[in-house]
């Protein structure tokens, strides 16, 4: 066998390994129920859950509770299946959490709480303004 053939085989093997490990390391978008099922089945994989903060009838956000030392926060989130889950975030509350229109939490379920290590917030203002700002009119 020629050297170039051996190298070629090694390269293909590494490329296949890369594809498999990418597929294996990729996370998934799930609902709270699915995340819980994953926890109960013993999977330690971290998942993404997309949702919104829970609001009461008057549209006020409820259930956002920073810890006493303010270094962590718990909040209630409604996933895309309309199920409410309790999320614990191990970092200080992001200042724009309450303004967000969509929240993506990344982490895993443990017992009855979703432990998030990472939060992605979609805030209306971070993207192009969809309407004129009152302050800018006048």
């Amino acid at each position, binding site marked *: 066998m*020629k*050297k*170039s053939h051996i*190298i070629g085989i090694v*390269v293909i093997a*590494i*490329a296949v390994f*890369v*594809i498999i*490990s*990418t597929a294996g*390391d*990729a*996370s*998934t*978008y*799930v609902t709270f129920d699915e995340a819980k099922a994953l926890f109960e089945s013993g999977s330690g994989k*971290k*998942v*993404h859950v997309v949702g919104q903060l829970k609001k009461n009838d008057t549209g006020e956000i409820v259930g956002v509770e920073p810890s006493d*030392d*303010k*270094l*962590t926060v*718990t909040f209630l989130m409604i996933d895309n299946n309309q199920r409410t889950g309790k999320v*614990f975030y*191990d*970092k*200080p*509350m*992001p*200042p*724009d959490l309450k*303004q967000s229109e*969509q929240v*993506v939490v*990344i*982490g895993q379920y*443990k*017992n009855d*709480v979703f*432990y998030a*290590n*990472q939060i*992605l917030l*979609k*805030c209306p*203002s*971070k*993207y*192009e*303004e*969809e*309407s*004129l*700002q009152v*302050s*800018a*009119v*006048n």
Partner: protein
Amino acid sequence: MINLFIGNLGHLFVILSFVLSITSAWSYFQVTRKKDAWAQKEWTLNGRVLFYLHSIFVVGIIIVLFLIIYNNLYEYHYAYAHASRHLPVHYMISCFWEGQEGSFLLWIFWNCVLGIILIRTNKKWEAPIMVIFASVQAFLASMILGLSIFEIKIGSSPFVLLRDVFVDPIFEINPDFVPKDGTGLNPLLQNYWMVIHPPTLFLGYATTLIPFSYVIAGLWQKKYKDWIKPALPWAIFSTALMALGQLMGAYWAYETLSFGGYWSWDPVENAVYVPWIIQVASIHTMIIFKKNNTALKTSVILVITTFILILYATFLTRSGILGNASVHSFTDLGLSGQLLIYLLAFSSAAVGLVIYRWKKIPTSDAEVSTYSREFWIFMGATVLGLMGFQVLAGTSIPVYNVILEKFGISSNLAPPPDQAIFYSKFQIWGAILIAIFSGTGQFFFWKNMDKSKLWNELAIPVLISLTFSTIIFMLAGIHKISNILLLTAGMYSLVANTSILLRLLKKKSFKLAGGAVAHIGIALMLLGILFSAGYSRVISLNTSGMMFSRESSDKMNLENVLLFVNEPKVMSDYELTYKGQRVELEGVPGFPPKKLTRRTSDEHTVIANADYIYEGITIFQAGDTLTILPENTYFEVEYSKNGEKPFTLFPRAQVNPNMGLIVSPDIRRLFSKDLYTHISSIPDPGSEKEWSEPVTQMVAIGERFFVNDFVSTLIKIQKIDVVEGIELGPEDVAAEAIIEIQVKNKVYTLTPIFIIKDKMIGNIPATDEEIGAKISFLNIHPEEGKFELSIETTQRDYIIMKAIEMPFINVLWLGTIVLMMGFSIAIVRRYKEFKKSI
């Protein structure tokens, strides 16, 4: 009144530049089809003039857009969305790349510059390469065309009016309504790096078109080998600028963003990293092609792949397909279809041409010897290719979902939860191999090697680097096997390339030293990254094992620390004290305390409450009117360590109505490490403070009482004759209570005022927001010898911050500079070779 003229003019320029680029491409295409010299000459002249005209109109578009921003014409959406009245002129340039249309414009502009340089420097290849250049320009110009043809939107114009973008009732009432001010440039972009990073990167991006044009022209015109000479200096130039642009971006992120580093494997970063690494591979195979035809074919593939990856990157970052996956992603302007056509048109044409000509490309079956530089360079290029492939595979995850959905399969793949680990665990092995190959490969530039000679050459560098890296890993306590290997390999590359450089200098052939210098730079960068990223240490780590719930047995490491104002806390080997909020005033050195100023009705103007002395000089006095940068608040944090002089850092938070709270770190730069500090959270600046119900207390002089849990003392009561803002008559009385509040090591003094004016009782409360106390002096009870105070409290001022130590980060920046020097030497050398060949 709305200025319609200027926008129409801009739009006209866009259309003209688009049409001219197509006609220029057509003219140059005619040159390649004509046989007789006269017709060729005529068409070349045509194409050239059309391309020049195209460039003139592109410059015209830029001038028009700049005038719209400069003259505050907020009837235009671009100016409204990206600029504001208070924006300094030098940051108006940055407005160009905050918006997607503007950044396309920047790209088009660079292509014009490059096209003109090519026309002027390479007459031989002018026609075929300019066909490709002008066609690319047509595609890019179509992105900002802003026309609707048969309901199909082509491009997004930077000259649309605000009223055509927003549906707002105000436009029905008054179609000529113009907002007073724009929403402003993202404060993160108001940074000098952001003025130079995007143009540099885009120039690097744009330059990838040159090697691509040469290889396509070469295949098309059957000049299978001749294209490399003119393409090589440009490929190196492009690689250098992309590296420089990326590193400027990394440095900006390090200084301005606060994710705790300089690289986060964000999809937008990856979108530049992948084509860059493939282009690095391509310049290496182009360098060795003379002796080896396999390298020629590989070069063809790599150069074309680089350009396709640039197109793919453009598609990823601008089509909105990344969604939430990136911090950079541009707003989706509905251009995804057009971008996809651009990507598919050029990649299928290029791939088709390569397949069609493949058999004609000279080839050889000779096996490459292990003791040749070709072998090592091939190995290096292969590793680079695999490194690029891994990043590409991971970054494309959002794309798989979209593709699968097109086939009716629902897919819920998400990016890996920890991107840094996902990418670095593979990339580090690539880096180790690259360091080894770049150290070894260099020796073959000298003479033909065989086994014994090679070992003779390598013995000393291997010994030196093993010794050094052993000492370092013993001292630094490195245990991870991959890190030990990277340290050793990086050290080896550094030593080996330095010895090559020394030999070159001895022979006085410095112009050949580009490779050695660039590889020294890479080795330094790898070592710098290994230490600063691999061994960064969170100083604010809280390992007390605080648990979220009692049932949970997980210990958590909290990486932030809560600091109340003037309450020192020991953190790692430092004692930290948060000393309060500071402001930034125009023309004022340092950061004066916020307390020294009070706001006025104009956001940008404040009045001084007291004198400000900086380094012994009085900078301003009470009552002075000053200009403030209203978005910026700095937080003074003092670090003290036993036996060392304390130092102060000023991390920043910006409160922006559109973006919420934006924080930027402050960095203490030492020779061997950086100490990086950023704010994670502060009391919500947007909401009004909620004060507690007032509590009335009767206090005697000298008596101690509590204010917001702090021991306080009523020191004395004294009569005052002057009260600011109130005229005292002969019958009137005013007195102030001097109250001292002890907060750890600091004493706060509050002086509420009690007034009897026109026989009416009144008072002026004293407030200190830092300690969250408001005290009113309500009454005097002479019979009991007591004074009636009312106390309200609120949350006292605090910050939550994170501090990280990054060892040897300066080695990374040093490596960057060395790498750029290496590239420069190589560019000069290869350009001279090209010049000699024509």
